[in-house]
């Protein structure tokens, strides 16, 4: 049986519940969403996979009205503090305006479809939605 869904990025894990996974430095605890040769914080070269909290708080956002071709605008880009780990993502499932999105707002991880490829595989991305 072939896969019917693929995560948009490799640090998004879809099953059993969608969540993000970081590479955590075993020495100092710094977390990275991409591969590192050595830790940018302490130079150690040992990492382990850790789950990132799926609930968080918006600590910065912008409402992008001018973006690259193919990206629907306006959309909300944000930095979400997930229990001490900062995560970059869009705020989804709410109106993209300053009345509906606020600094300090509580949010949770949510998934959204990016579309299907020719084999019928659906790419699934993450965002954050208001709690």
């Amino acid at each position, binding site marked *: 049986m072939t896969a019917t869904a693929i995560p948009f990025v490799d*640090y998004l894990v879809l099953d059993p519940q969608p969540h993000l996974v970081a590479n955590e430095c075993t020495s100092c605890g710094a977390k990275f969403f991409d591969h590192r040769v050595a830790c940018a914080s302490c130079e150690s070269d040992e990492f382990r996979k850790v789950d990132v909290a799926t609930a968080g708080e918006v600590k*910065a956002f912008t409402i*992008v009205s001018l973006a690259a071709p*193919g990206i629907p605008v306006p959309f909300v880009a944000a930095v979400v503090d997930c229990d001490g780990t900062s995560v970059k993502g869009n705020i989804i499932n709410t109106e993209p305006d300053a009345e509906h999105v606020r600094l300090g707002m509580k949010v949770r991880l949510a998934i959204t479809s990016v579309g299907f490829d020719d084999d019928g*595989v659906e790419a699934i991305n*993450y965002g954050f939605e208001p709690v």
Partner: protein
Amino acid sequence: MANDDIWILGINMTKFGKHPDKDAVDLGAQAARAALKDGGVTMKDMGVLAAGNLLGAGSFGQQLQKAIGQTGIPVYNVANACATGATALRTVIMAVKAGECDMGLAVGVEKLAGAGLLGGGGVAKSDAKKWEPAGKFGAVGPVDGRIGTNTMPGVFAQVGMEYGHKYGGTSFDLFARISEKNHAHSTLNPLAAYQKQFTVDEIKNDVMIAYPNTRSMCSANCDGGAAAVVVSGERLRSLSGEQQRRAVRIRASVLTSDPWQEACQILPDVNTLTRNAARQAYEQSGVSPDDLDLVELHDCFATAELVHYDNLMLCPEGGAVDFFESGKPRRDGDMPVNVSGGLQSKGHPISATGIANVWEICHHLRGEAGDRQIENAKVGLAHVIGLGSACGVHILERSAL
């Protein structure tokens, strides 16, 4: 002037704006020749050349030599994003300070008019027919716009919003008023790309780019060049009284990169490296923020200017909103900031910016700033930041002669 002092002997910036009839080498040559003339010297006096031009081909410095004088001196082609000009200047200062030569030339140029949106995925998205994970995040498509934003207006919007989340007091209106100040300042600067005063409402109602930054709150893409001649104190003493009187002493020259911080790879941390650079610059010079008569800081967006009031320690930590509201950073205030009009109206030809803001400070310290002269200016600070990140801070003092 002590032997080991370092001075700016000559400096120039071109008019910023559209120069359709000039290429990067033409603009660089214009600025370099004018800086040499300003210092009363020629390429034959230069022991080193450092040059930056991000959007052009490599070996910009060598192309420049072919336009202004090939003397066989070492050329350093430098690149450090928006801090490229400051990096060229810093490179020459290091060479002179190290005693490798007693005079050198730094040049920065960019052709950026009509460049549009910078930083994001600038090409049309063509999602694959088959999802194939690629790149450092194993992404099956471009992440910009789908996982946050990499566009410069959006990144710096979040920088300002993050400050608001931490300390409170920010609003769309506040950021628009910061922009209003700089546009008002620009009306006195004939070299600015735009010299147009806007009301706060006009700024707020302009085309939205990335909330809270509207178009007039974003730095202006334009063409421009800037160049500076650096000289040792020992060599300066052998020059004329007029050259010594117009020379500007470099009290501090600092370049930093960003040390690791928890969120720095999610949203660039423009704060820590700027604070570090400022702290080092104040220590090197013995100058305190209260001693500064004017500051040119890197207002690439209105949201960025706010955080740098704090990072450059022009106010107590967390006090940037109060600092702005007090009126201090207006040109008639106690601590004029961006009397040139700043990047929002003067323009931001990337590699030229880090020398052009030093030129602005020098212009005032020499008492040559005409209608926008800050009276009796003795000490000033110039700051730039390039994402990635690099931060340059220079503290300058007028000649005692």
